[in-house]
């Protein structure tokens, strides 16, 4: 099982170590540093690194490498999932997951890590249970603790840990009972030179914020559940009911959680919300290149496309870009060669464009590579797959909750090749 954990910051220092079994010397990380040096980019460090006696499995989150050390055959996904859980917990507890935040709360961090694993076996990873065991630090509580000498650690056996619904604590009370659901979809797409779609798929999630008193039992039904043929559920969802009736039936955890994530594959037709007209060209023997980009809305069902951000890694030979945006602002970083154009909202009457010239190094030959254009965008009040919630019902409790559902579409890895 998981033997030890090292946290390594961007400059390659180990700033925290935790051992669940015997102590493993931190020199084992040297193998990791070697791999880190070999990698051209921080994210290119291979996730599984063998060393003579151990295996190092790492994830990079918030510019911190979480390096787990294992000694025997352990499923790597198990380790990676656990590391993600650690990151999520830190974020949940401290708001951000940074080196400073971890150092500021080192005792809580240590206590958390101790609760999350026992001898390398996961113990309590549900945030509900952890919060009962170890209270998250707040300014008020820190002050009170200092004065009264009381602690962050709970005295009680976490009640949820052994019940049939381990994700929900008992005795929850709210004055305003509310349940909000956010349907968020991200489009991953690759569009080729000519504007036709090579591949497009939708990754969707339904995130919930449920603050309901007692033990509510919710059901959520969809207008078009057929869309959801590839789903992963939070453990609270009753799978049999979904199989039989295509209804989500569950006792929700308290607070924020991800109810389900789904995937609409490339075999269904995926609507592409924007199109890009581009002309990025260099002429042989000239030190100038042309840059011409126009964006326009495509299949948006009448909704506005907002927060559009275009970025592109220009060829290495490009020295500078002299461009003229019809709206928004652009920046070009001459070191990383990264061009970013903050477009804002797309006005269908007056399409945003970015035109101008790029200057090449004098005497440099025409660059071989074609830059790829990366697009970020947001569309409110629409799920691009067409998924719609039909109704939300609550059983088991008497009060009337306040319900709300929000839709949003974003671009995930949306790439246009030129």
């Amino acid at each position, binding site marked *: 099982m998981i033997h030890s954990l090292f946290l390594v910051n961007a400059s390659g220092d180990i700033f925290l170590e935790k051992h669940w079994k015997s102590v493993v010397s931190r020199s084992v990380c040297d193998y990791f540093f070697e791999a880190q040096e070999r990698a051209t980019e921080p994210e290119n460090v291979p996730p599984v690194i063998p060393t003579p006696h151990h295996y190092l499995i790492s994830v990079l989150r918030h510019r911190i490498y979480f390096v787990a050390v294992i000694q025997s055959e352990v*499923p790597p996904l198990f380790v990676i999932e656990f590391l993600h859980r650690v990151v999520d917990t830190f974020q949940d507890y401290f708001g951000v997951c940074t080196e400073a935040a971890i150092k500021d709360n080192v005792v809580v961090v240590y206590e958390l890590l101790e609760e999350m694993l026992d001898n390398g076996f996961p113990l309590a990873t549900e945030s509900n249970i952890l919060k009962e065991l170890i209270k998250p630090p707040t300014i008020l509580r820190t002050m009170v603790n200092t004065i009264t000498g009381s602690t962050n650690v709970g005295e009680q056996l976490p009640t949820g840990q052994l019940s049939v619904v381990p994700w929900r604590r008992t005795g929850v009370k709210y004055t305003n009972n509310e349940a909000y659901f956010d349907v968020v979809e991200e489009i991953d797409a690759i569009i080729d030179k000519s504007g036709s779609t090579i591949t497009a798929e939708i990754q969707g999630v339904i995130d919930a914020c449920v603050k309901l008193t007692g033990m509510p039992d919710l059901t959520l039904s969809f207008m078009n559940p057929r869309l959801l043929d590839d789903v992963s559920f939070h453990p609270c969802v009753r799978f049999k009911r979904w199989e039989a009736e295509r209804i989500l039936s569950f006792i929700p955890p308290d607070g924020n959680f991800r109810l389900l994530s789904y995937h609409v594959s490339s075999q269904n037709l995926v609507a592409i919300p924007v199109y890009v007209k581009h002309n990025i060209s260099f002429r042989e023997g000239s030190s100038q290149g042309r840059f011409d980009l126009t964006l326009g809305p495509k299949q948006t069902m009448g909704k506005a496309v907002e927060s559009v951000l275009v970025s592109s890694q220009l060829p290495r030979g490009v020295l500078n870009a002299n461009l003229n945006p019809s709206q928004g602002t652009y920046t070009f970083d001459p070191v990383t060669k990264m061009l970013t154009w903050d477009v804002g909202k797309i006005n269908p009457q007056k399409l945003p464009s970015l035109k101008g010239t790029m200057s090449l190094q004098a005497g440099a030959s025409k660059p071989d590579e074609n830059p790829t254009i990366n697009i970020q965008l947001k569309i409110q009040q629409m799920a691009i797959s067409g998924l719609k919630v039909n109704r939300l019902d609550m059983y088991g409790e008497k009060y009337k909750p306040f319900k709300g559902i929000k839709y949003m579409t974003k671009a995930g890895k949306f790439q246009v090749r030129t």
Partner: protein
Amino acid sequence: MTDSKYFTTTKKGEIFELKAELNSDKKEKKKEAVKKVIASMTVGKDVSALFPDVVNCMQTDNLELKKLVYLYLMNYAKSQPDMAIMAVNTFVKDCEDPNPLIRALAVRTMGCIRVDKITEYLCEPLRKCLKDEDPYVRKTAAVCAAKLHDINAQLVEDQGFLDTLKDLISDSNPMVVANAVAALSEIAESHPNSNLLDLNPQTINKLLTALNECTEWGQIFILDCLANYTPRDDRESQSICERVTPRLSHANSAVVLSAVKVLMKFMEMLPKDLDYYGTLLKKLAPPLVTLLSAEPELQYVALRNINLIVQRRPEILKHEMKVFFVKYNDPIYVKLEKLDIMIRLASQANIAQVLAELKEYATEVDVDFVRKAVRAIGRCAIKVEQSAERCVSTLLDLIQTKVNYVVQEAIVVIKDIFRKYPNKYESVIATLCENLDSLDEPEARAAMIWIVGEYAERIDNADELLESFLEGFHDESTQVQLQLLTAIVKLFLKKPTETQELVQQVLSLATQDSDNPDLRDRGYIYWRLLSTDPVAAKEVVLAEKPLISEETDLIEPTLLEELICHIGTLASVYHKPPSAFVEGSRGVQHKRLPGSAGSGESESQDTGSAAGVTEAPPAVIPSQGDLLGDLLNLDLTPPTTTGPPPPSSGMQMGAMDLLGGGLDSLMGDESEPLGGDLGGSPAMGAGFSAPTAAMPASFNAPVSGGLDDLFDLGGGVGLPMGAYTPPKTIWLPAMKAKGLEISGTFVRRAGVIQMEMTLTNKAMSVMTDFAIQFNRNSFGLAPAGPLQVLTPLSPNQSIEVALPLSTVGPVMKMEPLNNLQVAVKNNIDVFYFSCQYPISMLFVEDGKMERQVFLATWKDIPNDNESQFQIKDCHLNSDAASNKLQGSNIFTIAKRTVEGQDMLYQSMKLTNSIWVLAELRVQAGNPNYTVCLKCRAAEVSQGVFQCYEAVLKN
């Protein structure tokens, strides 16, 4: 008020200050001090000096303080075992606390104190906690049992904790079940043969019930455990699959992958015509695709596993090609994996799309990725015949870009395309020749030379081209040299008139001016061939070559089967058998897929691999006898290929081209067997891009000829005096180990047993990362240090290694007793072989028994344990024999002469303190000796006798 204050730099006397604070009366100050101590510990400072002061803080009602002290204890108890005993009482008391949280905390912590002395005190509290009324305590105690086993396995067995754990599998609480399974699985890893997780339909049912209700982590443990079960029939298999399928929709990807493993394994048993089989196949695709939208690290592990799944059951993902298309900002490790899977999924239906993508990738920035993309185009051409033309034109387009590494890579793959589709695309040769000057990598140069040699009759200036290469012959790498030699000989055979000078030049360069035996040998073969029988030479060198097949890079079917059983594990990430993980392989069990219900179906299902799956020999270590038997058989009879046809690759073709066709005549004509070096050198056909794959069976014949030679040679060079050392024998022939040949022997020098090996790299690529591991054996032989191969072993290089052995390793009786199973790992793969060591290696220097003791012992050992052997044809007198034996630590204690017959009484002692007593009778004039052996462990007699014979006869 944050904790970062604890990280302030070490001041002088900090420890002293902390000590004062820890002993303070104020609770608050104490706690602050403990926090500071913990913070220092976290960043790796040594605060062990504060042990007694911190332990004093343990008796507290404050839970946080208690926890902090526990944290400290776990870290430092090992370095302060005597002090740690002070803590025992508190643990015992806490285990009785009314609060289950405290009980659980205590049992959890005490398991983490890795001090032998203490563990004994902890058995009683643990026993209680394992039967605690609160399931939370029980599940914590289950893990504690595993911890304890890690520290002191014997103790856990003696105390009966294993049985208690087994009982917990039937616990009413799913979490307890999951933890019991996890604990047992971990313990089972160090007990390969114990039946700890005895799975039967009842336990399976319990596990499946618990599966639905336990946490995500528990589900992983249970699924991994289920995967070890072999259902009785297809109906049981189906019912398990049905109950596992819902796990595919879990949010935790590790659960999903473990479920995939169970399904992939049990699917084997389902009849293919069953409706459910088809349903299951359909259900497997979406979760796998979903894994690819996760974080890159998860994607990587998923992709490595999908690679296996696609090879085993391509039908699952055949429509999902698009999800493997590469995004430009994927990390490089994801890109390379995706590319590999794209090629595996390429078919006539989607080839156009794939090619368009690959062409796109070939213009990216990352050099490694671009190279692999170009190579992928070539692999597509070989795999999908209809696309070959399009692939070739794509490659030509790429060559036009003149980007150096693209051009070189393209030439390498075009050569492979020529091998697959001869006489079809030769029109492009002109274009290739234009780029001759820009080639600077050996592989590309070798490929180009091969092309020129192979099509010499169509290239007008072939002689000029080859001549230009010849100028810097000695600076070229071996690969290029060998290729150049062959190419020029081909050219000569095709255009003998104008190239005589050239061929003489290259032959003399290869034979007279080269230090490389491979090159020299090949040179000589050609030379003799050309001078004795040019017609035969033509037949040999220009023989029709078999076409290369598409799947050069498929994983070997038995390995694939094993890996499918290990989906989701490290083994599946590295595509190596679990036994390759030297550290973790305390007990290696080879898992195999269960056979299909209708045995006929598997044959008809997938044509290529099916035969291999059912008939392939299991990957077990062949015993030495078999191995030699194999070699001898091959020498006499033409090889009969059993199991899967060897994956053919360019390399082998090259070898067959030379040997397959013309070998008989060659061997017949030449009185001197050329086989020795020749057979073992896979580099014969060097220059072809294929990875070092297993040798084809037909290639074995000359090797065994060479082996005989070696044996003969070894026989003559035995050491006359001192410890008898058997000559080196070949333990691992190159053809069984992807080009690595190991020969070796055992020596005892100054009381140290050494395994002396010669490692020879007969493959084309450099070998590195050598490591060695022994299976458990009768006398506990184990490497006393790592295998000292410091420098990479380049092709055709040999290295002598002496590996000191200890006799304190794990013990298991072997058959025969002196059998040793060895696994050697290098960067290419892991190889197994077995060898037998002479028992005399184990005779220790102080094996001389007192006379009296000898007499008493001799009488003491029952006559049943006496065995008698004859040694024939030995012409030594008794003194010489005695001397000789003494060199091998067989000590003569007394000598008696009765009626012209010398009786030598001798003793020896094995490393594991077994005494062997012997009586050696030597009659003057009679070459036959008689040895009488007496030993309490009668099994060793046979081995000891063999030593006598070996020592006396050498």
